[in-house]
């Protein structure tokens, strides 16, 4: 027998934390719209926040595929926990792939592993209409320091994060599309709350609005232009990790529907309950979603070291399709699971409850809105010829 690899351990650890810690707290996190602190204490304990950091910096050198499997496992138990984990890892992946040439970021990532720091993201901004690739705020510089003030309509887990990666224009005279990614540290940061987070779903992410004021040194600017970081890493990683956790969420809802149908079957042996037919359709749709998500992951893994492929329209269109398809399938599959379970799925005090799943799943179409994603594809298809 071959010894278990670290990689296997990583996903197994995520699965264990998901079942033993995140799942029992999921309803309380949802009901009180609070941060899933017990799951993050357990993830930190196991060093899971530094999973993607290379081994020579103390991390576990995980692959995108392993992170995706962790997100899927966590998504089965608590979508808020999985989304926070995914968002943090997206930031780490951006730094590992685009900032290791900088001594400051190498040291930072080694420290992140040691202290299990949690990074939040401040990319959205009041006034840009949800466009990731435009900023209004700018990096202001004097001889020694940089300073940024950003009106952020949402920063998920902004109050709980140790550090924040934000986008801003490179300088006060740069156009909106000339952006950089800047790491700001908790100690150099003032967050003034401008809004609440009382939402239909994903309540544990605590995505409050803030006015963010930060200072730091010019070395905290990631050396590569954000345009490249976005297309080569941030967008594909987001779409792969988000769709993986939505797959976990949908799988758990279908798991509940399967358990419901089996219980019905036991009550009347020899007959196929009517709900079993609905379940058969639901399982088929889940299979379609799984194929879509896994193919998206393979696509990214295949091209992750090929800058020309990552920069191409073909790859961008496929990653956008991954997100649009999976975010459409997830709430549909959960709604079908509800149809299977009926009132038992509708009520919260039942083992077949899928109410939280349904509410969480409806966030998928809104995170980088599908309208925006399909408009981008519509535009690229004016010049793109194949696929």
């Amino acid at each position, binding site marked *: 027998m071959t010894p278990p690899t670290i990689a296997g351990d990583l996903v197994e650890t995520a699965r264990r934390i998901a079942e033993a810690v995140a799942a029992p707290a999921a309803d309380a996190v949802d009901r009180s719209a609070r941060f899933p602190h017990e799951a993050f204490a357990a993830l930190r304990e196991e060093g899971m926040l530094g999973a993607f950091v290379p081994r020579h910096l103390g991390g576990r050198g995980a692959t995108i595929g392993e992170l995706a499997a962790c997100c899927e496992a966590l998504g089965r138990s608590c979508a808020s926990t999985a989304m926070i984990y995914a968002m943090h890892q997206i930031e780490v992946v951006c730094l590992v792939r685009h900032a290791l040439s900088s001594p400051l970021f190498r040291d930072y990532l080694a420290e992140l592993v040691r202290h299990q720091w949690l990074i939040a993201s401040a990319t959205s901004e009041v006034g840009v209409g949800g466009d990731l*690739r*435009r900023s209004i705020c700018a990096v202001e510089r004097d001889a020694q320091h940089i300073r940024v003030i950003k009106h952020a309509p949402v920063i998920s887990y902004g109050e709980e994060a140790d550090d924040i990666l934000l986008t801003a224009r*490179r300088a006060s005279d*740069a*156009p*909106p*599309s*000339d952006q950089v990614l800047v790491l700001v540290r908790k100690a150099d940061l003032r967050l003034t709350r401008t809004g609440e987070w009382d939402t239909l779903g994903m309540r544990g992410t605590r995505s409050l609005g803030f006015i963010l004021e930060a200072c730091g040194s010019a070395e905290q600017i990631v050396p590569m*232009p954000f*345009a*490249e970081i976005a*297309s080569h890493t941030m967008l594909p990683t987001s779409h792969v990790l988000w769709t993986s956790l939505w797959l976990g969420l949908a799988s758990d809802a279908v798991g509940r529907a399967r358990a419901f149908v089996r219980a019905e079957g036991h009550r009347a042996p020899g007959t196929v309950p009517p709900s079993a037919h609905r379940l058969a359709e639901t399982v088929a749709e889940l299979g379609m979603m799984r194929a879509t998500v896994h193919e998206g992951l393979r696509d990214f893994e295949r091209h992750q070291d090929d800058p*020309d492929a990552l*920069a*191409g*329209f*073909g790859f961008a269109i496929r990653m956008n399709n991954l997100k649009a398809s999976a975010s459409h399938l997830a709430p549909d599959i959960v709604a079908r699971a509800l149809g299977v379970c009926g009132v038992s799925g509708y009520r919260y005090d039942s083992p077949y409850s899928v109410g939280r799943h349904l509410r969480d799943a409806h966030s998928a179409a809104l995170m980088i809105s599908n309208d925006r994603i399909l408009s*981008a594809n519509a*535009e*690229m298809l*004016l*010049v*793109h*010829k*194949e696929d």
Partner: protein
Amino acid sequence: MPRTMTDDIRAVLRDHGRLAVDVDRLADESNLYDSGLTSHASVSLMLALEERFDIEFPDRMLRRGVFASIAAIRAGLEELVGPRS
């Protein structure tokens, strides 16, 4: 003076690039993205270049770097139509 390929590229850029700066002041090597070319405008630019030069960009050329400067666009076009004065 006869009209060059670079003149044509500049004309297309003026009409479709929606840049934050005056195209006439741009050097051939200036980075167009730093000058405000958005991904949205870059698609209009690609379409207009295809129309003006009666070509179709193959998919492998549909990426940021190929449209990053007037010189880069010119190199891409020359690959498709051959060098012109």
